[in-house]
Protein backbone atom coordinates (compact mmCIF):
# COMPACT_ATOMS: atom_id res chain seq x y z
CA UNK A 1 0.00 0.00 0.00
CA UNK A 2 1.39 3.35 -0.91
CA UNK A 3 1.40 6.14 1.64
CA UNK A 4 -0.99 9.01 0.98
CA UNK A 5 0.12 12.28 2.42
CA UNK A 6 -0.65 14.62 -0.43
CA UNK A 7 -2.80 17.59 0.43
CA UNK A 8 -3.52 19.68 -2.60
CA UNK A 9 -6.53 21.28 -4.15
CA UNK A 10 -8.30 19.96 -7.21
CA UNK A 11 -10.42 21.57 -9.89
CA UNK A 12 -14.17 21.03 -9.40
CA UNK A 13 -14.42 18.94 -12.58
CA UNK A 14 -11.62 16.67 -11.33
CA UNK A 15 -13.41 16.23 -8.04
CA UNK A 16 -16.66 15.43 -9.84
CA UNK A 17 -14.90 12.79 -11.88
CA UNK A 18 -13.36 11.27 -8.76
CA UNK A 19 -16.77 11.23 -7.10
CA UNK A 20 -18.37 9.46 -10.04
CA UNK A 21 -15.67 6.82 -10.06
CA UNK A 22 -15.84 6.39 -6.31
CA UNK A 23 -19.61 5.91 -6.57
CA UNK A 24 -18.80 3.04 -8.96
CA UNK A 25 -16.69 1.46 -6.18
CA UNK A 26 -13.37 2.57 -7.65
CA UNK A 27 -10.86 2.28 -4.79
CA UNK A 28 -8.27 4.44 -6.51
CA UNK A 29 -10.68 7.33 -6.89
CA UNK A 30 -11.64 6.94 -3.26
CA UNK A 31 -7.96 7.04 -2.27
CA UNK A 32 -7.54 10.24 -4.25
CA UNK A 33 -10.49 11.88 -2.53
CA UNK A 34 -9.15 10.92 0.86
CA UNK A 35 -5.72 12.23 -0.08
CA UNK A 36 -7.26 15.52 -1.15
CA UNK A 37 -9.49 16.15 1.83
CA UNK A 38 -8.75 13.95 4.87
CA UNK A 39 -6.01 16.17 6.25
CA UNK A 40 -8.12 19.32 5.93
CA UNK A 41 -11.08 17.69 7.65
CA UNK A 42 -8.72 16.45 10.33
CA UNK A 43 -7.17 19.91 10.81
CA UNK A 44 -10.59 21.58 11.15
CA UNK A 45 -11.73 18.93 13.64
CA UNK A 46 -8.50 19.05 15.61
CA UNK A 47 -8.68 22.85 15.87
CA UNK A 48 -12.03 22.55 17.61
CA UNK A 49 -11.73 19.30 19.55
CA UNK A 50 -8.01 19.40 20.46
CA UNK A 51 -7.85 15.61 20.79
CA UNK A 52 -5.95 14.02 17.85
CA UNK A 53 -7.69 10.67 18.39
CA UNK A 54 -11.13 12.22 18.34
CA UNK A 55 -10.25 14.37 15.32
CA UNK A 56 -9.22 11.23 13.44
CA UNK A 57 -12.40 9.46 14.51
CA UNK A 58 -14.49 12.36 13.23
CA UNK A 59 -12.56 12.37 9.95
CA UNK A 60 -13.21 8.67 9.54
CA UNK A 61 -16.92 8.98 10.27
CA UNK A 62 -17.22 11.85 7.77
CA UNK A 63 -15.69 9.70 5.03
CA UNK A 64 -17.90 6.76 5.91
CA UNK A 65 -20.92 9.04 5.46
CA UNK A 66 -19.56 10.29 2.14
CA UNK A 67 -18.99 6.71 0.93
CA UNK A 68 -22.50 5.67 1.90
CA UNK A 69 -24.12 8.67 0.26
CA UNK A 70 -22.09 8.23 -2.92
CA UNK A 71 -22.80 4.54 -3.36
CA UNK A 72 -26.48 4.78 -2.53
CA UNK A 73 -27.02 7.63 -4.96
CA UNK A 74 -27.93 10.10 -2.26
CA UNK A 75 -25.20 12.56 -3.16
CA UNK A 76 -26.98 15.33 -4.99
CA UNK A 77 -24.64 18.26 -4.34
CA UNK A 78 -22.93 18.09 -7.71
CA UNK A 79 -20.32 20.85 -8.02
CA UNK A 80 -20.55 21.70 -4.32
CA UNK A 81 -18.68 18.77 -2.85
CA UNK A 82 -16.42 20.84 -0.60
CA UNK A 83 -19.23 22.69 1.08
CA UNK A 84 -21.15 19.44 1.53
CA UNK A 85 -18.11 17.62 2.95
CA UNK A 86 -17.25 20.36 5.42
CA UNK A 87 -20.86 20.85 6.44
CA UNK A 88 -20.94 17.19 7.46
CA UNK A 89 -17.58 17.59 9.16
CA UNK A 90 -18.57 20.68 11.16
CA UNK A 91 -21.84 19.07 12.24
CA UNK A 92 -19.88 16.10 13.57
CA UNK A 93 -17.42 18.43 15.29
CA UNK A 94 -20.25 20.38 16.91
CA UNK A 95 -21.96 17.17 18.09
CA UNK A 96 -18.73 15.93 19.57
CA UNK A 97 -18.01 19.26 21.25
CA UNK A 98 -21.50 19.24 22.80
CA UNK A 99 -21.03 15.68 24.01
CA UNK A 100 -17.64 16.59 25.49
CA UNK A 101 -19.16 19.63 27.20
CA UNK A 102 -21.88 17.49 28.78
CA UNK A 103 -19.26 15.17 30.25
CA UNK A 104 -16.72 17.83 31.13
CA UNK A 105 -15.65 18.25 34.73
CA UNK A 106 -15.81 21.96 35.68
CA UNK A 107 -12.31 23.30 36.02
CA UNK A 108 -10.90 26.67 36.88
CA UNK A 109 -9.59 28.06 33.55
CA UNK A 110 -6.69 29.67 35.39
CA UNK A 111 -5.42 26.25 36.35
CA UNK A 112 -5.15 24.98 32.74
CA UNK A 113 -1.78 23.59 31.87
CA UNK A 114 -0.21 25.14 28.78
CA UNK A 115 -1.09 23.17 25.66
CA UNK A 116 1.97 21.12 24.73
CA UNK A 117 3.62 22.03 21.47
CA UNK A 118 3.38 19.60 18.60
CA UNK A 119 6.33 17.26 18.29
CA UNK A 120 7.74 19.32 15.42
CA UNK A 121 10.87 21.25 16.10
CA UNK A 122 9.97 24.93 16.42
CA UNK A 123 11.59 27.85 18.20
CA UNK A 124 10.41 28.19 21.80
CA UNK A 125 8.93 31.66 21.19
CA UNK A 126 6.91 30.43 18.21
CA UNK A 127 5.60 27.42 20.15
CA UNK A 128 4.46 29.62 22.99
CA UNK A 129 2.78 32.04 20.59
CA UNK A 130 0.88 29.19 19.00
CA UNK A 131 -0.21 27.90 22.39
CA UNK A 132 -1.33 31.41 23.21
CA UNK A 133 -3.25 31.60 19.94
CA UNK A 134 -4.97 28.23 20.53
CA UNK A 135 -6.04 29.32 23.99
CA UNK A 136 -7.45 32.57 22.62
CA UNK A 137 -9.24 30.71 19.84
CA UNK A 138 -10.93 28.47 22.39
CA UNK A 139 -12.37 31.56 24.08
CA UNK A 140 -14.17 32.80 20.98
CA UNK A 141 -17.92 32.29 20.63
CA UNK A 142 -18.84 29.12 18.73
CA UNK A 143 -20.00 30.93 15.58
CA UNK A 144 -16.80 32.99 15.28
CA UNK A 145 -14.69 29.94 15.90
CA UNK A 146 -16.44 27.97 13.18
CA UNK A 147 -15.74 30.67 10.60
CA UNK A 148 -12.07 30.79 11.54
CA UNK A 149 -11.71 27.02 11.50
CA UNK A 150 -13.37 26.70 8.12
CA UNK A 151 -11.33 29.51 6.68
CA UNK A 152 -7.89 28.82 8.13
CA UNK A 153 -7.81 25.14 9.10
CA UNK A 154 -10.04 23.72 6.39
CA UNK A 155 -8.55 26.25 3.93
CA UNK A 156 -11.88 26.97 2.31
CA UNK A 157 -12.67 29.97 0.10
CA UNK A 158 -15.14 32.49 1.52
CA UNK A 159 -17.71 31.55 -1.10
CA UNK A 160 -17.71 27.92 0.06
CA UNK A 161 -17.92 28.93 3.72
CA UNK A 162 -20.84 31.19 2.83
CA UNK A 163 -22.60 28.19 1.27
CA UNK A 164 -21.91 25.99 4.29
CA UNK A 165 -23.18 28.60 6.75
CA UNK A 166 -25.98 29.75 4.42
CA UNK A 167 -24.98 33.38 4.62
CA UNK A 168 -24.23 36.02 1.99
CA UNK A 169 -20.51 36.36 1.27
CA UNK A 170 -20.50 40.01 2.37
CA UNK A 171 -21.96 39.15 5.76
CA UNK A 172 -19.49 36.34 6.12
CA UNK A 173 -16.53 38.61 5.32
CA UNK A 174 -17.71 41.09 7.96
CA UNK A 175 -18.17 38.32 10.51
CA UNK A 176 -14.74 36.89 9.76
CA UNK A 177 -13.18 40.32 10.20
CA UNK A 178 -15.00 40.83 13.49
CA UNK A 179 -14.00 37.37 14.72
CA UNK A 180 -10.35 38.08 14.03
CA UNK A 181 -10.53 41.42 15.82
CA UNK A 182 -12.07 39.68 18.81
CA UNK A 183 -9.31 37.10 18.70
CA UNK A 184 -6.66 39.80 18.60
CA UNK A 185 -8.30 41.60 21.47
CA UNK A 186 -8.39 38.41 23.59
CA UNK A 187 -4.70 37.86 22.91
CA UNK A 188 -3.83 41.47 23.75
CA UNK A 189 -5.78 41.29 27.03
CA UNK A 190 -3.97 38.09 27.93
CA UNK A 191 -0.63 39.73 27.12
CA UNK A 192 -1.46 42.72 29.31
CA UNK A 193 -2.43 40.32 32.10
CA UNK A 194 0.89 38.50 31.93
CA UNK A 195 3.06 41.64 31.70
CA UNK A 196 1.44 43.35 34.69
Amino acid at each position, binding site marked *: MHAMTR*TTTAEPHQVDSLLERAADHDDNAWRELIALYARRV*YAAAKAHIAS*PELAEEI*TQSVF*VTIAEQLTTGKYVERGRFESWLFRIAMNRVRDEARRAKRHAIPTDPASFDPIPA*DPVSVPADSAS*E*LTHLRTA*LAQLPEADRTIIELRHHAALPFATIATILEEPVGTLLARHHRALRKLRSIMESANEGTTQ
Partner: protein
Amino acid sequence: MNTESNHTPDDIRETVSALDHLAKREADAAPPGLEDRIFLRTAASLRDPSARAESNAPAPAPIPLWNRTPFRLAAAIALVVIASLFFFIPNTPSGTTDFVNQNTDLILEELDSILAVAYATDPYPELDSIDAELSELLNNDSFSELDAWLETEEAL
Protein backbone atom coordinates in the same frame (compact mmCIF):
# COMPACT_ATOMS: atom_id res chain seq x y z
CA MET B 1 -2.64 27.79 4.45
CA ASN B 2 -5.10 30.00 2.67
CA THR B 3 -4.40 31.62 -0.63
CA GLU B 4 -7.23 34.13 -0.60
CA SER B 5 -5.46 36.73 1.54
CA ASN B 6 -4.87 39.60 -0.86
CA HIS B 7 -7.63 41.74 0.63
CA THR B 8 -6.90 41.19 4.30
CA PRO B 9 -7.39 44.45 6.20
CA ASP B 10 -4.26 45.76 7.90
CA ASP B 11 -5.65 45.54 11.41
CA ILE B 12 -6.01 41.77 11.22
CA ARG B 13 -3.16 40.90 8.88
CA GLU B 14 -0.93 39.72 11.69
CA THR B 15 -3.69 37.62 13.26
CA VAL B 16 -4.49 36.03 9.90
CA SER B 17 -0.85 35.18 9.39
CA ALA B 18 -0.60 33.65 12.88
CA LEU B 19 -3.76 31.62 12.28
CA ASP B 20 -2.53 30.32 8.95
CA HIS B 21 0.71 29.34 10.61
CA LEU B 22 -1.16 27.52 13.39
CA ALA B 23 -3.40 25.74 10.87
CA LYS B 24 -0.41 24.60 8.84
CA ARG B 25 1.34 23.32 11.95
CA GLU B 26 -1.74 21.37 12.99
CA ALA B 27 -2.26 19.88 9.57
CA ASP B 28 1.42 18.92 9.36
CA ALA B 29 1.21 17.38 12.82
CA ALA B 30 -1.57 15.02 11.75
CA PRO B 31 -0.65 11.50 12.78
CA PRO B 32 1.46 9.71 10.16
CA GLY B 33 -0.50 7.39 7.94
CA LEU B 34 -3.77 9.23 8.55
CA GLU B 35 -4.94 8.90 4.95
CA ASP B 36 -4.03 5.20 4.76
CA ARG B 37 -5.94 4.45 7.94
CA ILE B 38 -8.97 6.41 6.80
CA PHE B 39 -8.90 4.55 3.48
CA LEU B 40 -8.63 1.14 5.15
CA ARG B 41 -11.48 1.87 7.53
CA THR B 42 -13.83 3.39 4.99
CA ALA B 43 -13.24 1.37 1.83
CA ALA B 44 -15.66 -1.30 3.07
CA SER B 45 -18.44 1.31 3.22
CA LEU B 46 -17.72 2.23 -0.38
CA ARG B 47 -17.98 -1.38 -1.52
CA ASP B 48 -20.94 -2.28 0.65
CA PRO B 49 -22.91 0.62 2.14
CA SER B 50 -24.71 -1.77 4.49
CA ALA B 51 -21.38 -2.79 6.05
CA ARG B 52 -21.37 0.05 8.53
CA ALA B 53 -25.07 -0.13 9.12
CA GLU B 54 -24.60 -3.73 10.18
CA SER B 55 -21.53 -3.28 12.29
CA ASN B 56 -22.71 -0.08 13.94
CA ALA B 57 -26.30 -1.11 14.35
CA PRO B 58 -27.31 -0.71 17.97
CA ALA B 59 -27.69 -3.91 19.89
CA PRO B 60 -31.32 -4.98 20.11
CA ALA B 61 -32.94 -3.47 23.14
CA PRO B 62 -33.50 -5.93 25.96
CA ILE B 63 -37.05 -7.22 26.06
CA PRO B 64 -38.89 -5.46 28.87
CA LEU B 65 -39.41 -7.72 31.83
CA TRP B 66 -43.19 -7.79 31.58
CA ASN B 67 -43.16 -8.52 27.86
CA ARG B 68 -41.63 -11.90 28.50
CA THR B 69 -44.13 -14.70 28.14
CA PRO B 70 -42.62 -16.96 30.83
CA PHE B 71 -42.86 -14.14 33.34
CA ARG B 72 -46.46 -13.50 32.36
CA LEU B 73 -47.29 -17.19 32.78
CA ALA B 74 -45.57 -17.33 36.15
CA ALA B 75 -47.45 -14.23 37.31
CA ALA B 76 -50.80 -15.73 36.21
CA ILE B 77 -50.08 -19.01 38.00
CA ALA B 78 -49.08 -17.15 41.16
CA LEU B 79 -52.34 -15.18 41.08
CA VAL B 80 -54.42 -18.35 40.69
CA VAL B 81 -52.57 -20.06 43.53
CA ILE B 82 -53.00 -17.09 45.89
CA ALA B 83 -56.71 -16.81 45.04
CA SER B 84 -57.14 -20.56 45.64
CA LEU B 85 -55.47 -20.26 49.01
CA PHE B 86 -57.97 -17.64 50.06
CA PHE B 87 -60.92 -19.68 48.88
CA PHE B 88 -60.03 -23.24 49.79
CA ILE B 89 -57.75 -23.19 52.80
CA PRO B 90 -59.68 -22.81 56.10
CA ASN B 91 -59.18 -19.51 57.85
CA THR B 92 -56.67 -19.44 60.64
CA PRO B 93 -56.43 -18.99 63.52
CA SER B 94 -59.55 -21.07 63.70
CA GLY B 95 -60.72 -20.02 67.16
CA THR B 96 -61.45 -16.37 66.53
CA THR B 97 -62.85 -16.76 62.99
CA ASP B 98 -65.08 -19.74 63.85
CA PHE B 99 -66.45 -17.88 66.84
CA VAL B 100 -67.34 -14.82 64.74
CA ASN B 101 -68.89 -16.97 62.00
CA GLN B 102 -71.05 -18.93 64.45
CA ASN B 103 -72.41 -15.75 66.04
CA THR B 104 -73.06 -14.12 62.69
CA ASP B 105 -75.07 -17.17 61.63
CA LEU B 106 -77.07 -17.06 64.85
CA ILE B 107 -77.90 -13.36 64.42
CA LEU B 108 -78.96 -13.90 60.81
CA GLU B 109 -81.24 -16.77 61.83
CA GLU B 110 -82.84 -14.64 64.53
CA LEU B 111 -83.40 -11.76 62.14
CA ASP B 112 -84.91 -14.12 59.60
CA SER B 113 -87.47 -15.35 62.09
CA ILE B 114 -88.29 -11.81 63.21
CA LEU B 115 -88.83 -10.67 59.65
CA ALA B 116 -90.90 -13.77 58.89
CA VAL B 117 -93.25 -12.98 61.77
CA ALA B 118 -93.42 -9.31 60.86
CA TYR B 119 -94.30 -9.85 57.24
CA ALA B 120 -96.64 -12.81 57.80
CA THR B 121 -99.05 -10.68 59.78
CA ASP B 122 -100.01 -7.08 60.25
CA PRO B 123 -96.77 -5.67 61.66
CA TYR B 124 -98.31 -3.34 64.28
CA PRO B 125 -100.05 -5.93 66.45
CA GLU B 126 -96.93 -8.00 66.24
CA LEU B 127 -94.60 -5.23 67.42
CA ASP B 128 -94.64 -6.64 70.91
CA SER B 129 -93.61 -10.03 69.72
CA ILE B 130 -90.82 -8.46 67.58
CA ASP B 131 -89.64 -6.53 70.59
CA ALA B 132 -89.73 -9.67 72.65
CA GLU B 133 -87.76 -11.54 70.03
CA LEU B 134 -85.11 -8.79 69.91
CA SER B 135 -84.88 -8.66 73.68
CA GLU B 136 -84.45 -12.37 73.75
CA LEU B 137 -81.78 -12.12 71.10
CA LEU B 138 -79.92 -9.36 72.92
CA ASN B 139 -80.13 -11.21 76.22
CA ASN B 140 -79.14 -14.46 74.62
CA ASP B 141 -76.24 -16.15 76.31
CA SER B 142 -74.56 -16.71 72.97
CA PHE B 143 -73.32 -13.09 73.14
CA SER B 144 -71.60 -13.63 76.44
CA GLU B 145 -68.84 -15.49 74.67
CA LEU B 146 -68.41 -12.54 72.29
CA ASP B 147 -68.32 -10.09 75.18
CA ALA B 148 -65.70 -12.15 76.92
CA TRP B 149 -63.61 -12.21 73.79
CA LEU B 150 -63.91 -8.46 73.32
CA GLU B 151 -62.83 -7.90 76.88
CA THR B 152 -59.81 -10.09 76.34
CA GLU B 153 -58.90 -8.14 73.19
CA GLU B 154 -59.23 -4.83 74.98
CA ALA B 155 -57.08 -6.09 77.81
CA LEU B 156 -54.37 -6.92 75.29
